[in-house]
């Protein structure tokens, strides 16, 4: 009897079905709506006439400023997450006692056990002008007046770094952990000090994990909506909020779609540009350490 055997790609069918239904179709719809227009006060979108007009609208000076603001928060937030997350991930993977690592990872994850919105609202209390942080800073004498950062871009930055830091730490931890102690010992045995060992062995080998961490933080951060809404106010606007307000408040799906598509493009192009830049920066370093022997005799 012929045995019924599914081809191996059948394993991927559930994932494909899910992604096609809930990702490809909606994104396709958003792309399609973005070329349409808002037909009247009560309509949300119409696509009988297609044009790039909504894109022109989305790039008007007001909206453009929000895009730039988003890019600033995205890049600054991601770099801050890297600056804060890299040392702690290195310490957890390399220096901390091996039997404590599980506990340390759990501690990194603890904030995730609390609702995202609740955590973010918590920062309102901390950052408020009459909040305890403000009073502490005044008591100690670091600031003269009340803390004036709630509902600013700074508050959004603090919030996103807090919210996305675990997404940076975990892949960095895994990356550093996988390098293992043997190669660091070999490096020191060959005369490299701690800094040299990090730059030439640990860092290059952890680079894939670092790239994963950067993308895991940068992409959701660029589309963040809750943090900016709760902590940003009018000054801390991000594109995510604009998109949401076009869909919900203004009921202009066409413009909201155009903004969403632009946001996707900005994320892709900026990530590619940053990657290219980092690669170009690394070229002289690679050239210096490359060893090319003449063809063997």
């Amino acid at each position, binding site marked *: 009897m012929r045995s019924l055997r599914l081809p191996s790609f059948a394993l991927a069918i559930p994932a494909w079905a899910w992604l096609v239904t809930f990702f490809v179709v909606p994104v396709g719809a958003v792309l399609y709506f973005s070329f349409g227009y808002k037909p009247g006060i009560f309509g949300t979108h119409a696509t009988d006439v297609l044009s790039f007009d909504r894109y022109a609208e989305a790039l008007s000076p007001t909206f453009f400023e929000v895009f730039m603001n988003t890019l600033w928060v995205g890049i600054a937030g991601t770099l801050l997450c890297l600056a804060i997350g890299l040392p702690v991930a290195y310490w957890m993977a390399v220096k901390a006692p091996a039997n404590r690592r599980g506990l340390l990872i759990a501690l990194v994850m603890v904030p995730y056990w609390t609702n995202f919105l609740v955590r973010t609202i918590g920062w309102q209390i901390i950052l408020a002008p009459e909040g305890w942080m403000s009073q502490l800073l005044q008591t100690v004498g670091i600031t003269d007046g009340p803390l004036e950062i709630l509902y600013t871009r700074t508050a959004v930055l603090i919030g996103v770094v807090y919210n996305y830091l675990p997404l940076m730490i975990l892949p960095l931890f895994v990356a550093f952990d996988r390098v293992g102690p*043997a*190669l660091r*010992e*070999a*490096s*020191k*045995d*060959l*005369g*490299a*000090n701690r800094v*040299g060992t990090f730059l*030439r*062995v640990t860092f*290059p*080998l952890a680079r894939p994990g670092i790239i994963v961490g950067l993308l895991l933080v940068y992409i959701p951060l660029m589309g963040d909506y809750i943090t900016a809404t709760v902590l940003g106010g009018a000054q801390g606007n991000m594109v995510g909020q604009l998109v949401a307000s076009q869909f919900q408040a203004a009921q202009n799906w066409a413009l909201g779609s155009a903004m969403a598509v632009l946001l996707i493009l900005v994320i892709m192009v900026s990530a590619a540009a940053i990657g290219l830049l980092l690669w170009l920066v690394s070229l002289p370093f690679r050239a210096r*350490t*490359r*060893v*090319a*022997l*003449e063809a*063997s005799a």
Partner: protein
Amino acid sequence: MTTATEARTVSPTDERDAASGSVELQQVTKRYGDAVAVDGLSLTIQPGEFISLLGPSGCGKTTTLRMIAGFEQPDEGDIRISGRSVLGAPPYRRDVNTVFQAYALFPHMTVAENVAYGLQQRRTPKAEVRQRVSEALDLVQMRRFADRKPTQLSGGQQQRVALARALVNRPSVLLLDEPLGALDRQLREEMQLELKLLQSRLGITFVFVTHDQGEALSMSDRIAIMRDGRIEQLADADTIYARPTSAYVAAFVGQQNFFRGTAAEGGSTVESVHGLVRGIRSDRLAPIADGTSVQAAVRPEFVRIEADAAAGAPATGANRVQGTLLGVSHLGETMQYLVRLGDDQSLIARRPTPEAPDLAVGSAVSCSWSDASVQVFPSDDAAAAGGYVAPPTH
């Protein structure tokens, strides 16, 4: 990059004195919590010497090597390399290099870049780096693999690269941590020969850690047999093999038949349940009081074996036992006989294949040996229990 002079000390040729390449361990102790890994160990290694630290896992040999390399700091004692104390000095400030057990080649660098790593750390000019890397790769016959990544190499090839990566720095002392352990037997034997030749040619001090007695015997000028963080015996291969100072050493190097019993005749004879085993007790060893618990050791290659009928008269006197032949194994150059003497005692005899007697399994046999082949030691729990040390499984 900083312009500061590289911290690693490289002694110029004119400063290389007689002590260059010597290693001295003075009363070195290393503890991990309550466990003592190395226990007051003292050892002086001459410049240019090939010394092996031999012992089972957990005897402290690797910890000793790691303290010389600088990966561990001793809790007590002093370590001197080329006459200077290296206490507190990190690995990158020591004039030693290590060939690691798992090679620890950098997977993101080519073979040439791996070998160049140490030279680049010392800001060696590029032309000189190329020159010396080429020479080092030629030395281990890996020049044509220079542009490969380590993952594209076989175990033996990786081992050669690891060797080149260490030797290219021209260290005073080369430390080798079971570098041949991952290789198959034939390759391992080839590399043993090559390593020994290389060492005599370069004149670098080699400190070789291994649990393989064959490796240690074939390559070393001297062997330090280690046990529980101490050196049990330190001598050349001949002495270790022929005149072990304890049952532990006797059991660890080569194979032994042990007879337990009580000492008689001034410690030279053992009264065992299988008869008298008589040896010649060396004056070098501590005296053994008659009546104390002792064991006699006889190596299988010294045991003669013949059919019992041929012996004629029943066994009388010392150094002659009778038993049943349990099995015969062909080991290539030798034939090995396993003889059962009693419930808890077996005996191994080994004869060169051309002159090995043809004996039927299950037949009665008679075994004998000369007084000169017997060594008597105080009883030692660490020596193998039962009558003999089981042959290694090949």
